[in-house]
């Protein structure tokens, strides 16, 4: 008999590869949306630039998009989605430049070659009447037009550059002018000309990479002679990796890197480590970090031996099912916190900062203690039912044997959908 379903069934190797790529794409998509939003917030600061403000200079503007470049500017798009210019605000870069009584936030619009099209004072902490004087002085306001950002950034003497202060509002107009030059310098070639940052590599980086290599050794070399050292390695991860290095992979670290820049120069060892922690399970299906290196995982492995298995209560399948939603739900909390810029220290929802003993907050200590206590009764309780980072690492892991679309894959899609929706909302929706 002809089996139609079998005819449409993908060969399992293709299916497996497809699912692996799917998971990677989900992770990349989430990273992209979080990053886009963070760029937008950075470019807009506390008072986002609206399209209306830009239309005063470029009437065909319909959309503003964060470029994420060094300039921290917004790209202006027309209704065909063609880039027609850039918008930027002087605050917070100009917050130290005070006129009579406070700094001003200046909107700067350029064409796509970074040639100034106009400026406007968006808001000001300065004396309102002086600000009005500057705003109505067309000569001062138009003086900037046609200059490139590089030329503006290079101004060191206002009168030499043909920019004269406004009579009766000298200090306010000068502060506005210096705010513009200050903003033009952000991410410009003037900054690039200075000596670039130096690569740093110290003993901490070496130690982290050593732990990674040893973890891989234990994961891939199953010889008895080597494996008998595993308990010692496990204790070393707790004492050295956990309590001394304190660089555990955590949401606070990951989201910080995604939102801002990855500190390539200053934390190369940690970056390589984190990259490998995600890449190795994706390529090989071996959860090297969770299985061998994570101090909190290892501590739970020791603690689950405290009470004999016979005397431990068993969780029902249904309870396990319900609790397994907690880690992805916490990832949703992480996303909402990042998009909303909420006053929540992400370190406090995971136990990893507790290893920094003196610097640890009460939240992280509580999560650590409760998780460890639970693991004496329910083996690896925190790993299984509480760890968002572990969930993410497991999500990208290549499955051994056959692979199929699972509940975790659906939840990953839901996380991506949430990130997408949040990234489409205007910043005003987040009270930013």
């Amino acid at each position, binding site marked *: 008999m002809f089996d139609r379903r079998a005819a449409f069934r993908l060969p399992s190797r293709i299916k497996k590869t497809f699912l692996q790529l799917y998971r990677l794409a989900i992770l990349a998509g989430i990273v992209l949306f979080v990053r886009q939003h963070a760029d937008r917030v950075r470019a807009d*600061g506390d008072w986002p630039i609206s399209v209306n403000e830009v239309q005063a200079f470029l009437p065909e503007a319909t959309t503003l998009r964060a470029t994420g470049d060094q300039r921290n500017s917004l790209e202006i798009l027309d209704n065909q989605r063609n880039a027609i210019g850039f918008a930027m605000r002087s*605050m917070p870069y100009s917050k130290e430049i005070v006129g009579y009584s406070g700094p001003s936030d200046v909107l700067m619009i350029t064409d796509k070659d970074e040639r100034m099209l106009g400026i406007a004072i968006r808001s000001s902490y300065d004396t309102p009447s002086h600000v009005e004087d500057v705003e109505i002085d067309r000569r001062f306001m138009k003086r900037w037009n046609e200059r490139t950002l590089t030329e503006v950034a290079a101004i060191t003497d206002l009168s030499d550059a043909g920019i004269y202060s406004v009579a009766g509002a000298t200090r306010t107009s000068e502060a506005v002018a210096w705010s513009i030059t200050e903003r033009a310098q952000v991410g410009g070639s003037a900054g690039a000309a200075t000596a670039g940052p130096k690569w740093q590599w110290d003993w901490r980086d070496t130690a982290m990479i050593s732990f990674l290599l040893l973890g891989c050794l234990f994961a891939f070399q199953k010889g008895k002679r080597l494996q008998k050292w595993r308990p010692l390695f496990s204790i070393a991860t707790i004492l050295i990796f956990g309590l001394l290095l304190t660089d555990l992979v955590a949401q606070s670290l990951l989201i910080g890197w995604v939102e801002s820049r990855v500190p390539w120069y200053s934390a190369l060892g940690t970056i390589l480590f984190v990259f490998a922690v995600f890449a190795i399970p994706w390529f090989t299906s071996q959860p090297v970090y969770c299985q061998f290196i994570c101090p909190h995982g290892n501590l739970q492995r020791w603690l689950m031996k405290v009470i004999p298995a016979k005397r431990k209560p068993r969780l029902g399948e249904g*309870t396990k099912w*319900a609790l397994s939603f907690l880690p992805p739900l916490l990832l949703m909390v992480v996303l909402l*916190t990042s998009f909303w810029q909420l*006053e929540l220290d992400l370190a406090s929802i995971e136990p990893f900062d507790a290893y920094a003993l003196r610097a640890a907050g009460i939240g992280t200590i509580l999560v650590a203690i409760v998780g460890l206590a639970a693991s004496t009764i329910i083996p690896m309780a925190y790993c299984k039912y509480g760890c968002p980072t572990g969930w993410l690492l497991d999500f990208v892991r290549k499955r051994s044997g056959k692979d199929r679309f699972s509940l975790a894959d659906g939840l990953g899609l839901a996380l991506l959908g949430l990130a997408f929706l949040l990234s489409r909302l205007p910043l005003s929706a987040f*009270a930013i």
Partner: protein
Amino acid sequence: MKRKKKAKNWLLLIGMIATLGAWMIHLSQDRLLDQRVRSLILTIQQGVQRYHVAEEAYPPKSMSGIDLIKLLQERGELSDALANPWASGARFSESPTPNGIAYETDIFAESFAIIATDPETGDVLYRLDSSENPSLE
């Protein structure tokens, strides 16, 4: 029996979602309050600057936010419709004291500081002044 167990698991899941959801809502309300407080300080600061232009000095003595707002409103330097962010948007003029805003100046009224504090804990949230903290960003 099995159905009862199933219901229990769903209840556990819904409970987790509800708890985390309530936590997020609580945090987002804080964020909203924060934004309202900042915009209130900015509005008051503009009123104070207008006063300075008219009188060549800032309001002459330190006072509570309500007194400052009343003073500026009476002089027409602030609008009547200023809402109190800590009292669900009620007008400041109708708000009970103490409120979260305080105004400080020196004896010559040459400087000013507008300080927002949490009305419950007294923690300083924002300080906008004419010397060290000229902006909220």
